[in-house]
């Protein structure tokens, strides 16, 4: 049987039942720093909800930031 997973920025990650906050820390990002934003299944999750939001299997998480653009 396939292990449950989540998709983070297009890449499969093992599902650990963590909160969004925990995931961000595990990825080596600083959750207290400005400059990143997160959508789960296409819906933006505001920073104040990161600690409460517990991820589910198959969740699609996008973590974005500003890059050079025109």
């Amino acid at each position: 049987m396939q292990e449950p997973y989540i998709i983070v920025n297009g890449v499969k990650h093992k599902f650990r039942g963590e909160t969004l906050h925990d995931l961000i820390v595990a990825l080596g990002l600083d959750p207290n720093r400005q400059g990143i934003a997160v959508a789960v299944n296409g819906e933006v999750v505001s920073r104040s909800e990161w600690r409460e939001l517990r991820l589910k299997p198959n969740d699609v998480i996008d973590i974005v930031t500003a890059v050079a653009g025109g």
Partner: protein
Amino acid sequence: MNDELVIAGRRFRSRLFVGTARYPNQQVMLKALEASGAEVVTVAIRRVNLQQRGESILDLLAGKYFILPNTAGCYTVREAVTTARLAREALGINWIKLEVIGDDETLYPNIPQLIEAAKQLVDEGFIVLPYCNDDPVTCVTLEKVGCAAVMPLGAPIGSGMGILNPYNIRLIREKVTVPVIVDAGVGTASDVAIAMELGCDGVLVNTAIAQARDPVRMAAAMRLAVEAGRQAYLAGRIPKRLYAQPSSPVEGRVWFGGP
């Protein structure tokens, strides 16, 4: 002289907006931004690279510039609205340069989707600056739905072809009351000057600076062109005429033809 650009009640010291993409490197970008005198610089919103993390562009720009995020690369209302919300969350700013692209070869906007996205974002409290066609009707519609400025293209993005339809740009300037910022298509300083002479309130330049042989020098040229074009517009140009009109007085000429 008090001739500031005001968008949604915010005053800007420069009428030149500069994009941050496609420079040879970050040092050149920073020097070019400085030389341009721009206050507003644009950024895009993309996934964080989790494998390889470099210096954030925000660290380089924050505090020095007004950072205007765009929705570049979005093709639908949903993508554009979500990207705008992410930008607001990431940057703590409710301004958005709204792009909803309709075709990946011309990068022309998808106008029905653009208008719908603009409506939604205005309702959500965003200050919306839409990249749009050089079409007066579209621009009036965008103003009606609450956009704080309109950003008609001079020519396709990155094409460097200049202001292809100056008459439309003039019509847009006459038909809308919000600021008109020409976005896209300029190739060199004279294109920027033309946009400003037509009465535009500002110009956004990216590729024409970033891909010039000397981006820093071109940025300075763009700054001067914006200023020259603006001054010429305010000064009021003479009408064009087909036949010559001597500038020196006709009376009192030396005449060798007799009495």
